[in-house]
């Protein structure tokens, strides 16, 4: 074989080698709303885990498609139940935190939003999460049970992108998680009718061994960290 013909073969070999470069550190799959927690967890553990942060459904999808992970944390029970049903999770999931839906407004509250009823105002720019993701399901539940007529201008693919658009003042208001509001220092409007819309965060070990990450989250120190980020702990 001539030397020039070898070049592409070497390229392919190089690509294959690059794909095999997995190391042995713990991989934790966590939902978008855990973004603000990772630094605190890293600091508390001896071995910093590698984080895969994405929407809960997407994480389960990735697992089903063969992604390797040691811990799965989902932002609601439905998604964890789906992972269990698909045989991706064999250990018993535990509740590590609870999040709640809050009405967040843009800095300075330019839309003068005072209650969830303002979310039906067509003149305001209102954002929700898409119903495909947990925070959107929770908002849809609130819409149904409170009989709200929500005039959404966008349904974002994850709570983080929604929260950022509210923080940037591009949206007047939206229904996001308490944790994202706390993390981005967003002003929230107290509306007690939202109090019942909560979601449990479930964690499960995927490698058959107890996970230091889950143990930490359930320890007093871990609970303190979760509470500081706006979560309620069990």
């Amino acid at each position, binding site marked *: *074989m*001539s030397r*020039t*013909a070898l*070049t*592409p*073969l070497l390229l*392919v070999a190089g690509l294959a080698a690059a794909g095999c470069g997995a190391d042995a550190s713990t991989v934790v799959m966590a939902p978008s709303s855990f973004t603000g927690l990772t630094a605190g967890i890293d600091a508390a553990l001896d071995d910093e885990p590698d984080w895969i942060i994405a*929407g809960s*459904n*997407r994480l389960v*999808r990735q697992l089903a498609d063969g992604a390797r992970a040691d811990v799965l944390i989902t932002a609601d029970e439905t998604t964890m139940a789906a992972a269990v049903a698909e045989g991706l999770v064999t250990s018993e999931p535990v509740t590590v935190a609870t999040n709640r839906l809050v009405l967040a407004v843009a800095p300075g509250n330019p839309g003068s939003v005072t209650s969830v009823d303002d979310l039906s105002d067509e003149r305001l*720019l209102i*954002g929700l999460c*898409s119903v*495909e*993701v947990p925070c959107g399901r929770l908002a849809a539940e609130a819409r149904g049970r409170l009989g709200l007529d929500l005039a*959404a*201008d*966008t*349904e*974002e*693919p994850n709570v983080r*992108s929604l929260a950022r*658009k509210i923080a*940037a*003042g*591009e*949206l007047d208001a939206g229904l996001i998680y308490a944790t994202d509001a706390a993390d981005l220092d967003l002003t929230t409007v107290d509306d007690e009718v939202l109090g019942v819309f909560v979601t449990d965060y479930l964690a499960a070990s995927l490698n058959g061994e107890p996970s230091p990450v889950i143990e930490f989250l359930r320890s007093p120190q871990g609970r303190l960290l979760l509470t500081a980020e706006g979560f309620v702990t069990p």
Partner: protein
Amino acid sequence: MSAPPRPTPPAIAVPAALAVALLALPVVGLLQRAPWSTLLERLTSTEILDAIRVSVTVSVVAALLCLALGLPLAWILARHEGRSIAVLRILVLLPMVLPPVVGGTALLFALGRRGLFGEWLNRWFGVTLPFTTAGAVVAATFVALPFFVTTVESALRDEGPALDEAAALAGASPWQTFVHVTLPALRGSIAAGVALSWARALGEFGATITFAGSLGGRTRTLPVEAFLALEQDPETAIAVSVLLLAISLSVLAVLRGRWLDR
């Protein structure tokens, strides 16, 4: 009569075959996972029909904007020299290099309601681009423009100024030359540029969802619909991808038959 084809040397055949494999394998992968029996049903739901309408509107308007704005820009780039032209040429390529999500964020910083220029748009004209179909068109045009400009600019350079000079000698004004000499000579490249920019606009996702958000019937295009469907209903996401593939292939095939064959 052309000479009988000579065998292709392996140094060319092997990498070319690898390129074909890289391009074709994902398509095969997509097609073998497609839910053929329920395809029509999935693609005629209200949500998907809305997304088709939004996608067609946004991509066609974006391609026309690329033509209207990109053709004069390509002409300037091809017919002038100098440092500012070199800088301009890099600027044109920027949307190709920039991750689309970053491009969308940059658009938000510039043209968002609280953006550098968006604030004026809002205050003076009452125009707010984000979260509107117009915003989706802006995002799609931003990412598609380089494809039109680079295609037409290189054709203009290849053609060279000789025809223009001849027209000028014959007494034509620069504008007459542009309309009656340059444009007809470039017909094929302009069609290719429109086709490329339209295809890029049709598949556009990152800048759109970042700048224009996602609302059914307004800004939720087929790629955004596919992305969201992946969360819970991957089969519908695959069906939407097959549809995107079919739309783009058939349009490109028609264009190739009509104008691009040279």
